[in-house]
């Protein structure tokens, strides 16, 4: 099934665009979909995943305007949209 990602922060430049689509097995969780994105997009992999392949806690995941926990167990539906945000600061 298809999961659409909207990317914010440094992830955009790293992925080469504002959005990214991944094809994942039916019934995956948001975290699994994020891991699939990181695996298929070399530019964002180290920003999203730590050394053991877990999603870094600094990466914010949103679905339908709500922040998701990294241990959210709800299965995604095909065509759903997740927003990923990497930390940004001032200056």
């Amino acid at each position, binding site marked *: 099934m298809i999961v659409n990602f909207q990317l*914010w922060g*440094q992830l*955009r430049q790293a992925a080469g665009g504002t959005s990214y689509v991944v094809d994942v097995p039916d019934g995956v969780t948001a975290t699994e979909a994020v891991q699939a994105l990181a695996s298929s997009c070399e530019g964002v992999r180290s920003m999203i995943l730590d050394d053991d392949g877990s999603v870094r806690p600094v990466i*914010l995941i949103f679905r339908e*305007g709500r922040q998701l926990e990294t241990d959210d167990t709800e299965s995604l539906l095909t065509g759903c949209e997740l927003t990923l*945000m*990497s930390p*940004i*600061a001032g*200056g």
Partner: protein
Amino acid sequence: MLTPAEKAIYEWQMWVPGIGEAGQQKLKESSVLITRCGGLGGLVAYELAAAGVGKLVIAHAGNLKPSDLHRQLLMTSDWVGKPRIDSIVRRLGELNPLIEVLGIPENVNNDNVADLVGQVDVVVDCAPLFEERLLLNRETVRQGKPMVECAMYELQFHITTFLPGPETPCLACLHPEEPPSWKRQFPVFGAVSGTVGCMGAMEAIKLVTGVGEPLGGRLLSMDMRDFKVMESLIHRRNDCVVCGN
């Protein structure tokens, strides 16, 4: 009591419903810490000085560099090589000599953070490094002070407000560690830092006066490339090392 000179200066904003003389008096009696005071914090400070916040505490180290000038609007080109904080204090004083501006030629660090936060009612976090931001966050949570969180990157920015108590997350709930990919220098326009700086100033004004609804528990993001706006609910982590149970 507001003086006739103050009433003359703040007349237009006192016409805003809910402000009046009472709201202006709250601003006069209030104090705000801004750290740092560059492209983003400079606009926070400028707007709060204009609005008549009685005391601004500003922490910003270092000397002015040419690469600051495209966004740091409290600087002047003749000041390159000289302390930024001197230009900040001078420019704010030129705009509003009726307020107190305390310029600290240091960034937030372990030694000064408790004193800096302890001097004010509201903190606005504008620092470029997560080490500073997380330090400031820890201290504002410890002292029970609200912190307005402003950030930017490229043509994007976001803003939220961390309120004391259990209702909203803190910065460490969102970013429990320093992100390894973040760099001190990054792409941005001054118009982006200025926009989110003005919004941060408005959040501080709302917190002080009680007018409007602060962004507690809501992260407002904008991409100025297409003016796409996103508002997202953000939440506390129960296992947060700063504010968690």
